[in-house]
């Protein structure tokens, strides 16, 4: 039991100067980063398509290396930032590896082109020298693939094509093993949302998937 002034002071110092927890730091950084945007940047006029793209990017946080990293030591984050051309290499490699349904192709969208990538509230492509978080490209590609598989399942469900529906369901059920689910870009609110879709697919209920796709699967395809 503290009985002297120095002991009281030491107790005050020990308990009041504890650092923020990592989760608190991330939450705070997220919010302040959003406030920067509200305070300083001129927002371009947003089309309906770009609002959906904003949601996509917000979910993946490819252009938010700091906010989405989930790392305790911010200085270590720089090791995971890569320049645009390297990011494009990651995108291309992922597109070669991540499977799509037969007959489907990757859409021609800004999210798959580092030179023209649009973050939220940005009207112009990034200039030379911008950096992206390593791994974000692979997650972006998987996210777009997931949406394509969701559409595949819906088309099969609505047309009564059981075999095609089962093939799509098999891939969708494996999404929890993807980087999309397990990477630092993901969090519980996001995986909970995806789990609802997966549960619906596995039970034959199309509604969660329809809702998800309507809100989150428009990538601004040209």
């Amino acid at each position, binding site marked *: 039991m503290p009985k002297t*002034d120095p002991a009281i002071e030491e107790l005050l110092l020990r308990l009041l100067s504890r650092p*923020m927890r990592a989760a608190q730091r991330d939450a705070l950084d997220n919010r302040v980063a959003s406030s920067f945007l509200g305070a300083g940047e001129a927002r371009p006029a947003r089309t309906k398509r770009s609002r959906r793209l904003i949601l996509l990017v917000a979910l993946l946080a490819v252009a*938010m290396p*700091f*906010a989405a990293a989930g790392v305790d030591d911010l*200085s270590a984050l720089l090791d995971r930032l890569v320049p645009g051309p390297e990011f494009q290499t990651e995108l291309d490699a992922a597109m070669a590896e991540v499977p799509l349904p037969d007959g489907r192709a990757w859409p021609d969208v800004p999210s798959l082109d580092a030179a023209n990538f649009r973050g939220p509230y940005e009207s112009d492509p990034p200039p030379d020298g911008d950096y992206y978080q390593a791994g974000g490209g692979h997650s972006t590609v998987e996210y777009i693939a997931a949406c394509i598989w969701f559409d595949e399942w819906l088309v099969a469900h609505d047309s009564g094509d059981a075999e095609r529906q089962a093939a799509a369901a098999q891939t969708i059920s494996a999404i929890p093993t993807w980087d999309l689910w397990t990477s630092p870009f993901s969090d519980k609110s996001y995986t909970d949302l995806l789990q609802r879709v997966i549960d619906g697919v596995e039970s034959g209920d199309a509604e969660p998937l329809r809702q998800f796709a309507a809100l989150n699967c428009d990538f601004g395809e040209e």
Partner: protein
Amino acid sequence: MKSTYQLIGTAVGDACSDSDEELALRAGTDREAQAQFYLRHREAVFRYLRARCRDEDVALDLTAMSFEKALAALPRYQPGTAGVRAWLLRIARNAATDHDRRRRPFISFWPMNTDQPSDQPGPEEIAITRDEAFRLQVRLLDLPEIQRDALALRYGADLTAGEIGTVIGKSEEATQKLIRRAVARLKEAYRAED
């Protein structure tokens, strides 16, 4: 143009040797300096507000609000005798005061860290610290608000007596007396329990 998120990310690793004043002046117009300003001062602001508030989530909200206001005001910042830390903590204090006027009438206990790195105390030591933390929080709430505030600025935000005086509107000498009286009062409260 770099997005704000990229600025915060790239600012992390920049070696910024600017003094607090130099950084604040640059941050009036330079977005990278704004990010660095935020990163440099966020712990101190949060610790003060956590010491002052009854809820860690509230402290986080108020920290964010304080920086929103500070960043908006930086273009008008003029160096004063007490410095930018006092300026920033005064913004935080005003945010806390405004919140206190609308606060809920219950106490929430500060949660202790659950994700301990390997060099942190084990469960027994955490249990002892939890008890100490609870008792200290109760004792702090018994203090007059200005004493509690001074302790939060001193031990949470690590301000000097002069800086604290600027924040709370007292001279350095008066602030030193205030802190001594607050500590003595805590000491007396613990002694009365024995």
